[in-house]
């Protein structure tokens, strides 16, 4: 007969008690249980189906004739002591002589198994569910790293991308021998083709490319991509692996430092001279791709000074080799031509973190490398008052949108906008943000904003809040609300890190003037605010009670909040967002400049200009402005006519000649050089001095304007004159040295002697009082002493005792 229950009674499930069995069966039935696999009743002979009457099932145990059966209703009929407490299916099967079946146990097992199965199903559901939506084995920043040049997000750095690729392409002449002929032709026409920034071999004039820029805008990605697309194999050296020491086979000495250094050098040179190889099947074959060395994070690498030293050595040996080229080389020289490109990547090209002997590492690197700096996509305030990014930022947003579409995150454009703004244009941070907050943002769309109150508030949102008042609440309530948010709500995350609080304060500071301007245009509020800003500044520097510093935001709200804040159409301050950043950057740059200049100044002048080595206030205040005017005197006879006629020294009058000589000698002693600099944008050749004092000396605002054109015009005729003056000085000093007649020698050295004599005086009158004072000796027979400052053999002159003892 058909059984409604899905049990396979063919395998003879035994039910002794009708009621119990019914309920139990009902349960198991619902759970769609498979008794066939889970419950096996071993040794039980299948009984004719007729015996199973509907719910009541009577089972006879075949040969094992009637044994006692335990009934479910509690009646125990002759309980056999042999029954085991824990029965599992297999045991039942094996024990043929088992005559008593513990139904209790069986059901327990059945339930357990069912529960287990259910659990497993639930578990697997949990596991598979997220997998369906966020199928990630990879961090998205890696997953969406551009694979081709065209995939690169422009982010306002298109020009930089092109510059990198141009630079790399110029190498192809040397590396691939493709354009070599063409370049050789060029070379004959003008050997120093600085105009194209190419040297005799067609390589870029500067052999190292230094790419700098803020984190997360794709420096590394770009460099890798471009190098790969141009057919290079990228060999990367970064802060993580540059410290590795080569295997002990290269252990050249017991000096560990030397070893590391040597290893590093070997590593770099290996990278530069070898082609990469690939394993194909059993064979290892060269894929023919030349290497391009990429040194990442060079400004932070622990041994950046070593790396830079090695690079410097490479460049020098290259220069030597280049000079020797063409000459028949008798013996094998150590100097190798550099024939692979080297690209360095740094966050801050002006980093002053690490320094070694005689200057900052990055300074040394900068001087030998071509500089390309990436810019962060900046926010631009439109005239409509809506904050939008320029083209650059939009491209970032498009990029993020692409990813969100691919990942099916369904983000609205304004949400993407927010993400980009939070991350301040840092693409990598944007993608990270997207991946880890992707789900959260999904909730954000669907759910009401109140639930998400404890979500992170972005700093600019908070800034907006501070200038807004809720019309439905009275002032006290609103104040309490805001305080709640600041102290425990979304604002807390901002307060917890001082960096973001600073951003909020700056944002408010940038904005409040406009608000006041529209409110009442009185200065009372700015005055009051200045007290609070002072409070903030002092608390911030004390570093002890930072938890109070966020209260200043409440003051902002109290002073400036409005129910309907106006959109600021035209800010009083132009380009408010960047002005502070730019000012800081310029300050840094100028400070670096002063340092550089001050290290080159001769010691005695340095002392005269006031003590400090690096942080000298007076340098920027008045020394340099005056110095600049002395370096570039207004030559009267060259007149007001700044025409470009060729001027020579002969055209000048005596006084101007003097000025020129003075200026030239100062240039020499301060080690200021002039150089031509090609502006990539306007393609003009600019005349600059190095270190470039222009940025320190000139101001450009409403009051004083800075006219670079006039300066350039002046330099165009002034520099050649200086150059001839330099040449004259060097020639003069040479000829003077050669044609020293005894008499001129006397005169020229006389000044120096007095100090040297005194030196000897001190040395010898301590030994013997009999010695005549050398000054008197001076009158009778002169001693000429050559004094080499700074050397151990400082004084070398054969002096007979006679000279000293003569009375």
């Amino acid at each position: 007969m058909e059984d409604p229950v899905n049990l396979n009674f063919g395998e003879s499930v035994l039910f002794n008690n009708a009621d119990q069995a019914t309920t139990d069966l009902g349960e198991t039935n619902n759970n769609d249980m498979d008794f066939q696999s889970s419950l096996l009743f071993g040794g039980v002979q299948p009984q004719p189906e007729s015996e199973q009457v509907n719910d009541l099932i009577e089972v006879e145990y075949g040969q094992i004739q009637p044994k006692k059966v335990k009934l479910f209703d509690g009646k125990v009929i002759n309980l056999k002591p042999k029954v085991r407490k824990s029965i599992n299916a297999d045991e039942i099967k094996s024990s043929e002589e088992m005559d008593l079946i513990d139904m209790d146990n069986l059901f327990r097992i059945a339930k357990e198994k069912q529960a287990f199965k259910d659990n497993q199903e639930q578990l697997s559901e949990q596991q598979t569910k997220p997998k369906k939506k966020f199928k990630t084995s990879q961090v998205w920043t890696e997953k969406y790293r551009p694979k081709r040049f065209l995939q690169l997000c422009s982010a306002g750095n298109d020009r930089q991308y092109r510059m990198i690729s141009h630079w790399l392409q110029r190498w192809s002449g040397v590396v691939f021998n493709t354009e070599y002929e063409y370049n050789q032709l060029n070379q004959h026409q003008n050997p120093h083709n600085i105009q194209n920034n190419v040297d005799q071999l067609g390589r870029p004039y500067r052999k190292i490319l230094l790419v700098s820029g803020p984190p997360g805008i794709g420096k590394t990605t770009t460099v890798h991509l471009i190098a790969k697309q141009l057919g290079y194999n990228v060999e990367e050296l970064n802060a993580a692996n540059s410290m590795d020491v080569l295997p002990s086979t290269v252990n050249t000495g017991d000096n560990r430092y030397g070893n590391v250094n040597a290893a590093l050098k070997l590593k770099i040179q290996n990278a530069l001279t070898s082609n990469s190889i690939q394993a194909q099947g059993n064979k290892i074959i060269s894929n023919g791709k030349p290497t391009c060395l990429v040194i990442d994070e060079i400004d932070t690498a622990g041994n950046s000074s070593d790396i830079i030293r090695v690079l410097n050595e490479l460049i020098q040996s290259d220069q030597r080799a280049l000079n020797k080229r063409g000459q028949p080389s008798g013996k094998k020289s150590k100097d190798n031509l550099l024939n692979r490109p080297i690209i360095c990547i740094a966050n801050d090209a002006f980093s002053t973190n690490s320094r070694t002997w005689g200057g900052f590492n990055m300074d040394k690197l900068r001087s030998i490398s071509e500089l390309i700096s990436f810019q962060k996509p900046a926010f631009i305030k439109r005239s409509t008052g809506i904050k939008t990014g320029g083209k650059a930022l939009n491209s970032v947003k498009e990029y993020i949108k692409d990813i969100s579409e691919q990942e099916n995150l369904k983000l609205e454009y304004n949400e993407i906008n927010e993400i980009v703004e939070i991350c301040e244009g840092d693409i990598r941070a944007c993608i990270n943000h997207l991946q880890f907050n992707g789900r959260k943002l999904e909730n954000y769309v669907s759910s009401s904003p109140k639930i998400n109150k404890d979500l992170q508030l972005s700093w600019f949102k908070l800034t907006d809040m501070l200038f807004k008042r809720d019309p439905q609440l009275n002032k006290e309530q609103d104040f309490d609300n805001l305080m709640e948010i600041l102290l425990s709500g979304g604002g807390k995350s901002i307060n917890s890190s001082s960096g973001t609080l600073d951003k909020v304060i700056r944002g408010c500071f940038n904005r409040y003037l406009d608000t006041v301007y529209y409110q009442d245009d009185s200065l009372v509020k700015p005055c009051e605010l200045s007290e609070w800003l002072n409070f903030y500044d002092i608390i911030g520097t004390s570093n002890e009670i930072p938890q109070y510093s966020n209260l200043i935001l409440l003051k902002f709200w109290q002073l400036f909040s409005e129910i309907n804040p106006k959109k600021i159409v035209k800010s009083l301050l132009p380009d408010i967002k960047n002005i502070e950043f730019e000012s800081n950057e310029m300050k840094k740059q100028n400070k670096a400049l002063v340092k550089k200049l001050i290290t080159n100044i001769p010691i005695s002048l340095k002392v005269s200009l006031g003590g400090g080595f690096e942080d000298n206030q007076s340098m920027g205040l008045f020394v340099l402005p005056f110095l600049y005017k002395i370096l570039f005197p207004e030559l009267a006879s060259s007149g007001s006519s700044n025409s470009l006629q060729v001027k020579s020294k002969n055209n000048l009058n005596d006084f101007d000649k003097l000025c020129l000589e003075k200026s030239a000698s100062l240039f020499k002693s301060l080690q200021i050089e002039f150089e031509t600099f090609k502006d990539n944008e306007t393609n003009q050749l600019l005349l600059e001095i190095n270190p470039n004092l222009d940025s320190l000396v000139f101001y450009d605002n409403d009051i004083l304007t800075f006219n670079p054109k006039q300066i350039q015009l002046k330099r165009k005729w002034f520099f050649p004159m200086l150059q001839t003056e330099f040449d004259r000085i060097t020639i003069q000093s040479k000829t003077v040295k050669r044609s020293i007649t005894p008499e001129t020698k006397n005169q020229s050295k006389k000044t120096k002697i007095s100090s040297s004599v005194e030196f000897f005086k001190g040395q010898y009158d301590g030994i013997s009082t009999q010695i005549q004072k050398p000054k008197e000796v001076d009158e009778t027979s002169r001693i000429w002493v050559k004094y080499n400052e700074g050397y151990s053999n400082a004084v070398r002159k054969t002096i007979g005792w006679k000279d000293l003892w003569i009375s």
Partner: protein
Amino acid sequence: MSLWVDKYRPKTLNKLSFHESITKNLGALASTGDFPHLLVYGPSGSGKKTRVYATLHELFGSQVEKLKIDVKTFTTSSNRKLEFNVLSSPYHLEITPSDMGNNDRVVIQDLLKDIASTEQVDFTSQQKGIKHRFKVVIINEADSLTRDAQAALRRTMEKYSSNIRLIMISNTTSNIIPPIKSRTLLVRIPAPSVSEISQILNNVATKENLKFSVNEESEKLKLFEKIAINSSQNLRKALLCFETVSMQNETIQLSTNLIDLDWEIIIKNISRLILTNQSVANLSKIRVIFYELLAHCIPARIILKTLLFDLLESCESNKIEDLVSIGSTFDNRLSLGSKSIFHLEGFAAKAMVALS
């Protein structure tokens, strides 16, 4: 060829021209062959360091002028290598703590201990019976030493006093802790007077054979006085200014306009803005200018000071008191805080309110 600042710098005590009594005292100090720790203070450009070097010259002879730059390395507590320059001669060395940032305590301790552990060997004055057993350490800008470093100095000054003499040079004594002050001999070098500066300028002019349009001494002195006043009695600035003027023309016209520094002109304009029109729009304009001045390495306190004096020059006399009190408040804030733009703008705003 070198700048006049360097060229006409006196090397010995008897060549020093002004502050005779201080010079005499220093000479007397040097003649004993020994001296206590010194704290030399006074405004910049008043000849503090020149005097110190002249004293050293008196003590040790010309050897002190054989200066060279050493690079010293130190390991900070965070295991970072730190390198900085030390200017030294056989008898002394000179350090500037602001080079070292926050690590000046470590550097000062290590450096001083290092020097103190080696005793100076001195041949020269054996015969006189005085041995210069000590080395001199000059600390520039001593007021920029952190509290920690100053505290570290306290003990070292006493402990190693047999081997080390400290000469601290600073602009003010206000940042120096009292224990240090009590351990040093305080020498104040005031700024030279206008007539003293013009005398010096006159000497330089005759030595350089400069031509003037008028030959009368009194007329020339007027020009020199003008320069002296213009450079706020800073001799270094006066000399540089004079040299620049002399480069402009072969014969120096007495009526020549002195060269105003760009930043001074700009601050003058700010003061004019504040005086003429007190409005928020103006305040925002001023903020932009402040940013630019800061970018050109002009210290905020100098901006404040110059601006205040420019304002005082041209405001009504009953406002002076208010302005000065505002100025001093904000000067205090600038020296305590670190975000100078807040305070500068605060000063501008308050000054506007006071003037309106």
